[in-house]
Structure formats: structure tokens, C-alpha cells
């Protein structure tokens, strides 16, 4: 029950990218994204270079284009605004296929779309090659504040429990004839959300009691954190991608 769908984004495989420790992948992804964002929008060739880097990493990680692009659709609601820019932008205008578009707006749309897509693809590659658990371990090793990694750990553990609880409550509601179709029929659902919140709250108390009973004093003990931390060689290997990206960004900045 509630098992098996925790890995929406993770793609089980054994590739050089999968084997890299999580912290170097996170660092590489962040540096890569910063480089992409810092690139002037008119340096079209630079974005081609970034795209090539993404393709190379994807190939190395054995992640197919269909898998990657399908999940990249998640950015659509966020870039929808970009499609409106060419129509509503001001200044000089050009005619494309009978439509009068703003040049400035076209540049703006390209800027959002290209940078957004590259960022999403980089994040997807990270998620595809790193389990959620490893992501948290990686953040921890990168000295992310423990409070944040702890919250993420709890979320990872209890999300399925909560979803299971919500599902059982929904089934029980439906079994008693609740069948909301309109907004004003959502009373049962709303009460369910409230009950779920209370249950989660009470569970939080019980979990804390059980933790205190095993000697918890407010700090998570470091368990096996040192094991498997990245070596200098792994850092160097993973640094190639962000290094190339940073070089492209620097050249693009100088040239434009």
C-alpha cells in the first residue's frame, strides 16, 4: 500500500553519472544553471553549447530524450507568460507569418524559454540519476542547514503515510455516498483535510516521543555520513560540465 511510486523522477540504471556522489552532482547542476542564467540572451551560439552539454550528460546517464522531454513539460505553466511577450511587447516590430510581433518581446520570450528549459533539463538529469534519499545526503554534505535536511527527510518518510491515510479517508467517505461534483459539495473533502492535518499533528507528537525515548536530544546524530563522500577525482570529473558552461558564459559575456 502506498509503495512503489516514490520514484517518479528517478531512473534506475548504472551509469557513470549515477555512480557520482550526490553532492558533486548538486554542485555541478547549480553552477551550470548559474552559468546559463548569466549568459546574455543574444549569444545564441552559447545556448547551443549548453544544449550540447545537456545532451552529452543525458547520453552518459542513459536517459532517453523521450523520458526527459516528457517530464520537462512541467515547465509549461511557468513559461506560458513567455509566449505572450512577442504580442504585447513594445518597440520595433516585425511581421512573421502575418502576425506583427515585437522584436524586444521575441528576445524576452527566447530568454525565458531557453534558460528555463536548460535549467529544468539540468534538474531533471540530477533527479534522474540521484535518489531522493541521496539528494538529501548530498545537501547535508554540502553543509545545508540540518533543519532543512531534517524536514526533507521527514517529508520523504511520511509523504507516503499521509497519502495512504488521505486515500483511506477518501474511500471511507465515498463508501458512504459522498460524491462531490461542485465546489459547494466539498464539505466532506474540506473536513477530511482538517482531520488529516490533526492526524499529522498528533503523529508528529508521537514520532517525537518515540525519538526522545531513543535518546534524541535535538540534534540528529551523524550516521555513516562520512562514508562514500566524494573524492577529489570525482569532484574533478563532475566539474568538467560546469567548467565548460562557465567558460561559454564568460566568452559570451565578453563578446556581446
Amino acid at each position, binding site marked *: 500500500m502506498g*509503495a512503489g511510486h516514490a520514484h517518479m523522477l528517478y531512473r534506475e540504471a548504472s551509469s557513470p553519472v549515477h555512480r557520482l556522489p550526490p553532492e558533486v552532482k548538486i554542485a555541478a547542476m547549480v553552477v551550470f544553471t548559474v552559468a546559463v542564467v548569466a549568459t546574455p540572451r543574444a549569444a545564441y551560439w552559447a545556448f547551443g553549447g549548453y544544449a550540447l552539454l545537456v545532451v552529452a550528460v543525458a547520453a552518459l546517464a542513459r536517459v532517453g530524450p523521450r523520458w526527459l522531454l516528457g517530464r520537462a513539460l512541467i515547465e509549461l505553466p511557468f513559461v506560458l507568460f513567455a509566449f505572450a511577450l512577442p504580442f504585447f511587447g513594445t518597440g520595433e516590430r516585425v511581421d512573421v507569418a502575418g502576425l506583427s510581433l515585437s522584436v524586444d518581446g521575441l528576445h524576452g520570450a527566447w530568454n525565458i524559454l531557453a534558460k528555463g528549459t536548460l535549467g529544468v533539463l539540468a534538474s531533471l538529469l540530477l533527479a534522474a540519476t540521484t535518489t531522493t534519499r541521496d539528494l538529501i545526503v548530498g545537501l547535508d554534505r554540502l553543509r545545508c542547514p540540518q533543519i532543512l535536511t531534517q524536514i526533507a527527510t521527514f517529508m520523504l518518510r511520511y509523504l507516503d503515510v499521509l497519502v495512504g491515510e488521505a486515500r483511506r479517508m477518501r474511500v471511507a467517505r465515498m463508501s458512504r455516498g459522498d460524491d462531490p461534483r461542485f465546489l459547494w459539495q466539498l464539505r466532506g473533502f474540506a473536513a477530511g483535510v482538517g482531520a488529516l492535518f490533526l492526524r499529522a499533528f498528533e503523529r508528529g507528537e508521537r514520532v517525537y516521543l518515540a525519538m526522545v*525515548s*531513543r535518546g534524541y536530544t535535538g540534534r540528529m546524530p551523524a550516521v555513516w555520513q562520512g562514508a562514500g563522500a566524494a573524492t577529489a577525482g570525482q569532484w574533478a570529473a563532475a566539474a568538467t560540465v560546469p567548467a565548460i558552461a562557465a567558460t561559454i558564459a564568460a566568452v559570451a559575456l565578453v563578446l556581446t
Partner: protein
Amino acid sequence: MIGYVQQPPSLDVRGVRYAYPDGHVALHGVDLTVPRGERVALLGPNGAGKTTLVLHLNGILTPTGGTVSVGGLTVSRDRDTLAEIRRRVGIVFQDPDDQLFLPTVAEDVAFGPANLGLRGAELTARVDEALAAVGMAEHRDRAPHHLSFGQRRRVAVATVLAMRPEILVLDEPSSNLDPAARRELAEILRGLPVTLLMVTHDLPYAAELCDRSVILDAGRVVADAPTLELLSDERLLAEHRLELPYGFVPRPS
């Protein structure tokens, strides 16, 4: 006898009284002694104060009167004492989802001993030992929510076994288990070389595992005798809202 040194009992509860902050008195002077190595069932209806008593055993609640000692060490508010008490008393809570809060089984079992300061190979050995004791060694790297309920309860037992407790306290260990999981857990518990206090209203389970039983009702110990003797006393059971399942006749196995 010359040269005979008496070991302190694993658990010694003396005159423990407790009132909740709202004034409701949950425990009216409870006395309970569990010698080392014994298995005792703590029986009582819902609301008798069983869970309240359990939370006193490792100092989560502080009695308004009376004392609790574990293996000769008296529970107090002192930090070091509390840490040692929580090592000695291993509480297995009723819902394993409350107890298992980390993403993998091994990490969760390591949580307790790591709080005791164990690290590295020693910690790994402790985890493997505890998981082996409950027959879950091959599941060490799995996520708790991918295990069956019975497996999760066994892992919950392992999480406190890993702290090498003086006494294992189980809150309703048989609840929500199917008959096979129930039997497996009983076999595991019987094989553990620790003192056991089992809080339950599952009377057959108490009869199966514990020679001695204590009945707690309305915050008082109302009976303390061999389990079979208690379970044969229909009037006593009825007085305290305890009932044997239909068709169950207690008899020595």
C-alpha cells in the same frame, strides 16, 4: 548465602502517582517490580493508565509522587541519568510508523545507538546484530513504508534492541498483526535474552508469552499473579473490563 550478590530488579516502580496538568489523576500509587529476565504482561482496559505508566518508565513523564528505578538507577531529571535510563528502557510504541521515521531500516535502527555515541564499524555491527535478532537482516536497506506491517513492527523492536536495553517495553505488540505475523513476533520475543514488559489487552498473547501478569485499572494495580491464574478468574476479569476471546480456555501449554 555467602558471596551471593543480589542483582537489582530490571524495573522497580514504587508508589508512582501522576496527575495530568488539567488535574485528572491517571496513576494512584502504582507498585511494580520486574526481576531481571522475567516476562510480565501489563493488562488493563483502555484508559486504565497503561500508556501513562509506560511513559514514566523512561522519564518522559515525571511522577508527581513515588520513584521509578531501572536496573538500580533511579529516574531523575538529570540529563546524563535520563540518557542512561533511555538506553536501559527500550519502548516499542504501538504504531511502527511513529517509531520508524528515517528513510531506510538501517538508518532507523542506527538512530538509537548513534544517540549513545556509537559510530563507524561499531555502529554497523550493532545494527546488524539487532536486525538479525528479529530476522530482518536482509531488509536493512529498504524503506520502512515498503515493508509489511509485521515486518515494520519487528524493525521497531530492532530499533530499541540496538541500544542493548535492560528491559524491553512493548505497547500492544500484537495489534494489527495477522495470525502468522503474531506467531512470528511471539517466537522472536521469546528468544530474546532481555526482561520484557508487555502492555496489552490481548489476553491469549499474554498467556502465550508471560508467566506473570499485572492488571492495572483506574490507575491502580488491582492484581499481580501468574497469568493463567488471573485468566481463570472470570469475576476478576469482568470487574476490570477484560475478556477472553470466544472459545478460549486458558490452560498451561
